[in-house]
């Protein structure tokens, strides 16, 4: 017993080090798997409050670009409104989805794009009706998916996150793939697992696919910058230049698919029966 106590006293610093290291590695490993970082995230009162304070100052620097974005969006919407009578095209824009989708606006108070796993923090939380796994877009394209939610704030897994996997397709042919990011340039993401039969051409538009219940179908993502067949020649891997400037995101729309639970229950039942 004496020896154990002596051992503990002698190596107390080392034991403290090992214990704390273990703790931090657990947090780190959790943060590398989707939806697992339970304890340490920025959707809380303290960091949310500080980020809001910072944002109150820095928001002035981006006012001009955000105004321009709003004006562009307004003119686009106005154009659609004026032309709606003589237009039969049922192209979906980001604010008109009938009753299946509900939209909440939110302000971005913290945005990252220089790490390998990037997150945004929004100044809107469960009190504003935000839940986990809702889609986040801007007028130009997609931003990410809601991760953690606190009463006043929420975090978003950016599309610039190595855990993010979003279903996307070619706008003109419906061939779909998975949108991933491998770090580096915040304007380029990669669309992988696209069938080699797909008619891929540089400059073509990539939009969200209808396979997930998170995003509505047809939200813009970006254009094809370059593409190549993988070594087995079965799949394309396509570099996509984003419509969104992820380094400058001010206001976002959070989309809730009201039919989501219904769709998921149905799919679950179908799977269980087989």
């Amino acid at each position, binding site marked *: 017993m004496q020896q154990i106590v002596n051992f503990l006293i002698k190596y107390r610093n080392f034991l403290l080090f090992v214990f704390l290291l273990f703790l*931090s590695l657990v947090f*780190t490993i959790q943060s590398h798997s989707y939806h697992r970082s339970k304890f340490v995230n920025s959707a809380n009162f303290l960091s949310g409050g500080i980020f809001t304070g910072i944002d109150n100052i820095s928001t002035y620097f981006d006012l001009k670009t955000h105004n321009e974005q709003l004006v562009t969006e307004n003119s686009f919407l106005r154009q659609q409104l004026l032309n709606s009578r003589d237009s039969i095209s049922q192209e979906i824009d980001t604010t008109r989805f009938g009753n299946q989708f509900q939209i909440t606006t939110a302000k971005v108070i913290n945005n990252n794009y220089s790490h390998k796993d990037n997150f945004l923090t929004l100044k809107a939380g469960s009190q504003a009706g935000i839940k986990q796994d809702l889609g986040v877009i801007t007028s130009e394209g997609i931003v990410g998916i809601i991760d953690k939610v606190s009463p006043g704030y929420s975090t978003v897994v950016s599309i610039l996150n190595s855990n993010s996997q979003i279903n996307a397709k070619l706008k003109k042919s419906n061939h779909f793939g998975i949108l991933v990011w491998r770090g580096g340039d915040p304007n380029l993401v990669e669309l992988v697992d696209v069938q080699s039969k797909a008619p891929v051409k540089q400059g073509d538009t990539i939009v969200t696919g209808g396979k997930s219940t998170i995003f509505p179908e047809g939200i813009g993502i970006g254009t094809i910058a370059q593409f190549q067949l993988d070594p087995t020649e079965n799949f394309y891997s396509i570099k996509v230049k984003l419509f969104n400037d992820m380094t400058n995101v001010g206001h976002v729309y959070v989309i809730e698919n009201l039919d989501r639970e219904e769709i998921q229950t149905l799919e679950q039942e179908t799977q269980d029966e087989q």
Partner: protein
Amino acid sequence: MSNSIFRNILRFVVLVLAQITLFNNIKFFGYINPYPYILFVLLFPIGDNRASLLFTSFLLGLSIDMFANSGGMHAAACLCVAYMRPWVLQSIFGIAYEYNAVKVSSAAYGERLLFVSIMVFAHHLILFSLESFNFSDIIYILKKTLFSGAFTLLLAMLFITLFSYRRK
């Protein structure tokens, strides 16, 4: 003694705030951020209170992690450099360290530079390895360590010189 505690608490708060408001948003060339908050670990009073150094370094890293949504990467990196600090000090300052006569802010320039650069690059290497969590990205890790490390080193040396506390 209480003066020293107060100064360290102040340094902790100021460095964390400066890191999250200013240095996390620099994004030089898109991905280079300096991390001068580890000055806290470098300038922590040298003495026999190793447990408190370990614990406060862990807390420092964890508070940065909370704001950066990075799990426990900063905490792990800070903890490791805090743990290896006595050996680095001993190998650089030798006998002076054993007599508790070392003060980083008033050490000779060459020794100070060596000490700060070893600590900074060790911290950044651990940090970016944990961030990418994948050994096939070794080039990316080394590149980021080199560039961010040089940036942090520059800022750290600058801050030590600017804010060093001279008694007359």
